[in-house]
């Protein structure tokens, strides 16, 4: 594995992913705010949650890119379109399994079954995160596809 190439490409791809999600949120396509959701695990202070969550999201994206890189190395294929396909699979996982597990795993997220409580007040994402806007799946697919494509395009196989 090419460690220096992973550090650079993983960082760039994560920054692009974060910027793409923030842009689609700012343009009103979705209310899904991953840094906020992640940060709210750590604190109930919403301003700090955004900051902590952003840092956690960047580290998380960086770390997650190792899995992509391992796939590239194993298959000896690091073309942009292959990265894009992995990104789409990644997005599908996030939107289905991830959103299904999130209300159970997140300490501050309400569940449809029990409703909000004093501690759990965050709106759950629902299937495909549609609760956060009907265009949320598109935004998640596009940003993760960009993540995979950029990572693959920048990564140099060992």
């Amino acid at each position, binding site marked *: 594995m090419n460690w220096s190439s992973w550090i650079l490409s993983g960082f760039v791809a994560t920054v692009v992913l974060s910027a793409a999600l923030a842009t689609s*949120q*700012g343009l*009103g396509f979705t*209310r*899904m*705010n991953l840094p*906020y*959701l992640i940060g*709210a695990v750590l604190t*109930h*202070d*919403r*301003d*700090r949650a955004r900051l902590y969550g952003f840092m956690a999201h960047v580290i998380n994206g960086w770390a997650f890119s190792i899995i992509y890189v391992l796939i590239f190395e194993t298959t000896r294929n690091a073309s942009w379109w292959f990265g894009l396909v992995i990104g789409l699979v990644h997005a599908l996982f996030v939107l289905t399994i991830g959103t299904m597990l999130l209300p159970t795993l997140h300490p*501050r997220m*309400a569940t*449809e*079954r*029990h*409703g*909000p*409580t*004093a501690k759990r*007040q*965050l*709106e*759950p*994402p629902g299937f495909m995160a549609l*609760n*956060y*806007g009907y265009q949320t799946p598109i935004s998640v697919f596009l940003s993760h596809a960009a993540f995979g494509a950029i990572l693959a395009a920048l990564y140099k196989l060992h």
Partner: protein
Amino acid sequence: MSAQPIVNPNHTFPQGKFPRICDYAVIGDCRSAALVSKDGSIDWLCWPRFDSPSIFAALLDRERGGLWKISPISKYSIKRHYLPDTNILQTEFTTESGTAVLTDLMPVRENGSLVPDHEIIRQIECTSGELEIEVLLSPRGNYGDATPKLEQRGRLGLRFCHGRGVYWLRGSESLGVNEHSAILRHQLKSGESLLFSLSYTENAPAILPDISQIRHRMSVCADWWRQWVGAMRYEGEFRDEVVRSALTLKLLTYVLSGAVVAAPTTSLPERIGGSLNWDYRYCWLRDASLTIRAMLELGYLDEAAQFLDWMLHATRLTQPQLRILYTVFGNSAPKEWESKTLRGYENSAPVRIGNAARDQLQLDVYGEVIDAASQYVFHGGNLDHEMQKVLVGFGNYVVKHWDEPDEGLWEPRNGRQNHTHSRLMCWTALDRLVSLAEQGKLKRVKVEEYKRNRDAIQQQICTRAWNENLKSYVSVLDGEDLDASLLLLSWYGFEKPDSPRMQATYEAIRRQLGTRDGLLYRYHVNPPEGTFAICSFWEAEYLALGAGKSDECRKLMKSLFKYQNDIGLYGEEIDAQTGDALGNFPQAFTHIGLIGAALSLDQRVKGEQQLGHRPESAMDEEHQSKVA
């Protein structure tokens, strides 16, 4: 408790007459505001900002506007009040079978905590006997154009999406959903209550508040308002009225920028059935000086600093030219358009969104902004390098343009004229800049050039704005008509209130524009509109500044208090026949006028300096001799 969700109600909207404008109360969270009628109906709400499209607008169309009503089903009488020193409204319904109290509030955002960005909390509690309550939610987005589909989401609550955001209604009881509206009928016995939270979220997953915490949050909100009122310095004889006015002013101050909107509504008519319907959900610079003076002298230095900062920095895009109105973030107000859906309050069409006055030229705004800065300095504030540069830029603009006609303070849409008030404010602008420079508070001022132009304006006002036949100052140079803004010649220090010319002008204004009940029209117009509420407070302040005795001012103010509604709110105008409010409601400018008059009276009673425009006031001997 027993709930009866009704899936197909016979009626979805209360039919019948519009409430009187003065029958409304306002609640708000310093970001947006809602109007609540005496029937417990929220008839106006725009989220997330004051100037966002409405989600409830029954205020402007009973059938198409949308509302959220909570009231008893049987006949009732009501009493209402704000909880002391707060903007939390309580409406008490009394029926033959029992009494219930409805509490309405918009929680002020608790910093850092996990609560909704925008929320209305409503609680109705049966305090004696028993009665059946109806809760009707019927949202209509985008000024009545959109009909959001309501979805019942089990224990999470009821939700609907519109525009960029999501609305969630959570309650201690569920409402039955009828696609586009939801309703609940519920029998309450003494001691029982219903609690609801309607929230709006735009940029993140929504926070769904826990209903069991709502009472605690209501108490936190009440404490917040009381703490704010506790910082007030005014202890004069009209404390109740000043507190209510200050609370209204604070409610209309957009917390994220410090801008103050003129009113939270659009198109409430200045003449019932007429077309004098304007959108007031923006910030007018012409109110700046009076606003900042009210904030400073009530002891709210932070609010004043934030407001000044907003004026000097948020308006940067157009400097050194100033527009007359801006959005809360300093953008140009949107172009004016007319709603095709909403038919207007009492069919007073059109309902206008945006404001065409944005393209007008009003030279008075330069004096307003500069005088606001001057007052800020007088109360101990400092102007940083950037602020000084901006103020000098305004001064240079005034030097070049003061002799031009403009649309003037009252924003008529029939062309430009040489308004006396605009000249007065250009004189004020240069006079304050000279004063600030001489105090060493402002650098790089062309003092001699400013003085030369200031004196030229003064000469022009003294000769061409004075009508010897009428024995009065007049609205436009070489004109023959009066308007009430001439009373401000003394407020800005141009001429002493007890000078022969001002006394004669005051008598002429009272004679031509006054009513028997002590109210004032702003000017003559045919057909007549309502009397202009702030003009009456200008009159009271003119008396307090030395034109009359303290008792005359006191008497006038007490007579004006008769025209506030049952909870102390004023609109823009007062119908001279009925005493009802007209125009957008409640009106920040009117409440600022009330505060100003009360402050000046209090200062006079205590023998304190009034209107700290500048130590070497323009009303000195040298100036008087020039005027003479």
